[in-house]
């Protein structure tokens, strides 16, 4: 209050600002005092006092020196809920780890942009390189696959690769990101601009720590008919701009195929958290050997 009284030269002009400031309940008295002094000084013709910035407190967090790496377990390691002997899954996992020691299979999700070079007897130089968006990751165990989509010369092309096939020589992640859905099959019915990926794209750097960026892009669709009725609740798609292609009445009509009882069905629950932790620790142990 004494500081405020000292800057009483331009008080009439400062009354409004003061009232506002008091209502807002500023935390930093220093800020208030400096701004007021500045305002007050600007009215008179005297030289403005030299602005001395307050000393900033430097916060050093000594508890976490290095940020921990993102824990990622590839979805094909998680066994499906079946009446199979766990011996079969453990043997498959050993084979998968052996292959991963030779070929580096990076972390990626549906929506990331990948480049794959594969051995091909018919191609010149015996290898062919394909760049595209990953629209789906399917299969479990050694038969895991992923589909890359791109549009080349106006023609949409999708290639389904086996993750553990010996013909694959390198897999590079050019851009690591997630989308709002796990399955981007609707890109087939979307405008071509959303599926085109530049073939000579440079890899976008991403950090191995922290969260994976989620691209909340909502895609515009071509006019109906589509290959599948993506508005139906069984697909549960978040990444399409339905308001541009469908009226609200049609959206309501699509909700007729909703099955709201499924989320309460206890027999369909498959809790993989403990399994995931076990398998992740096992895989990390084997990979570090």
């Amino acid at each position: 209050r004494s500081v405020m009284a000292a800057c009483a030269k331009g008080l009439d002009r400062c009354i409004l600002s003061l009232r506002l400031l008091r209502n807002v309940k500023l935390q930093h008295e220093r800020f208030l005092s400096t701004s007021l002094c500045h305002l007050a000084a600007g009215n008179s013709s005297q030289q403005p006092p030299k602005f001395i910035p307050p000393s900033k407190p430097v916060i050093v967090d000594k508890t976490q020196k290095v940020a921990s790496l993102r824990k990622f377990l590839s979805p094909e390691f998680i066994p499906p809920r079946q009446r199979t002997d766990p011996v079969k899954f453990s043997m498959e996992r050993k084979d998968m780890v052996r292959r991963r020691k030779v070929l580096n299979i990076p972390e990626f999700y549906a929506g990331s942009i990948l480049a794959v070079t594969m051995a091909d007897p018919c191609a010149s130089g015996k290898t062919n390189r394909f760049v595209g968006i990953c629209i789906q990751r399917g299969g479990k165990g050694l038969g895991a696959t992923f589909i890359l989509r791109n549009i080349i010369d106006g023609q949409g092309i999708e290639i389904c690769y086996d993750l553990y096939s010996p013909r694959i020589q390198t897999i590079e992640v050019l851009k690591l990101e997630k989308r709002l859905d796990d399955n981007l099959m609707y890109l087939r019915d979307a405008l071509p601009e959303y599926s085109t990926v530049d073939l000579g794209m440079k890899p976008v750097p991403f950090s191995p720590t922290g969260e994976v960026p989620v691209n909340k892009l909502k895609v515009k669709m071509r006019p109906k008919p589509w290959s599948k009725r993506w508005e139906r609740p069984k697909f549960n798609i978040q990444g399409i701009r339905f308001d541009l292609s469908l009226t609200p009445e049609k959206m309501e009509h699509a909700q007729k195929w909703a099955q709201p009882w499924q989320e309460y069905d206890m027999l369909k629950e498959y809790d993989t958290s403990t399994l995931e932790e076990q398998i992740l620790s096992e895989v990390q142990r084997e990979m570090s050997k």
Partner: protein
Amino acid sequence: PAHLVGSLRTVKTTTWFEEHLTEDNQEYMRKSIAEEYTRQTAEKLNPLKDEPWQRHEWTEGSRRVGLVAVKLGMAPMWTKTGERHVVTMLQVQDCHVIKHLSKEEYDGHTAALVVGGKNVSPFHRSGTEMEMFRNAGVPPKQKVTTFKVSDNAIIKPAMQFLYYFCNVILSVVCSGTPLYAAHFRPGQYVDVTAKSIGKGFQGVMKRWGFKGQPATHGQTKTHRRPGASGPGGDPAKVFKGKKMPGMMGNIYITAFGLKIWRVNTKHNVLYVNGSVPGHRNCLLKIRDTVLPNRSSTVLNPPFPTYFTEEEGDLDEDLYDENLFIHTEPSLTLT
């Protein structure tokens, strides 16, 4: 009352082991039996104590024993040229030779060996079955089959004259010869027999692949029916064996000429090409191929069977020469 006729227990003769025992005794029975059987399966045939039968060499036209295995599941595998094939994994769990039937006992032409598969609890087996397993000194098995064997390939099941001593000594000293997955080698061809998946009472279209009738164009109540059942007035009958609706599946089917790509000696698993009849975790009978063009003379598989003491340690995984092993670098096709 009429509605309880099927659900009332009419046969009151046989009892089950738990009926007259207290809970402590039941638990003790279970534990002791489990320990005894693990001891029996872990024991291998000791050549010094048990006087093994003479080992003959392989001759033209001799047949060796087969194995009983469990179907685990299927997995993909790749060859060195990059082609993808599917493979079924069969695990040999506790396979023992139980009895030897000589030529005269069996059918007068060939000798036979009775082999048993997966271990199972003794509490739900009948007395006659248990006697056979007790003679062999082996835990009771879920599947028991006979394999026709030539005389030079018979394997010793157990010492039968020691049966007159108390059972404790019997279980310690002798047990049936165990059979392992290394009995088969990669590159060999096998026949696999199993009970196919039961589909129940099925119509003629699913069971025999009939075409049925069209869905529209005036068909009255006839879309999946067999149609005509025979020639007509001349035979004036329906021939025996006419394909008609009935029970489908749950019969023994043999898949011939399946190649073995890989043998895992640690877990006793065989990787067999293609698919095999039966559901997951079902028991199968595996034997060397009958097909003349796929007989394995070049490979020299162990004859009469693979003995761990005599043949020493094999690698954990035996691979076929065309199979791509995952520890190798990626393929570069030239």
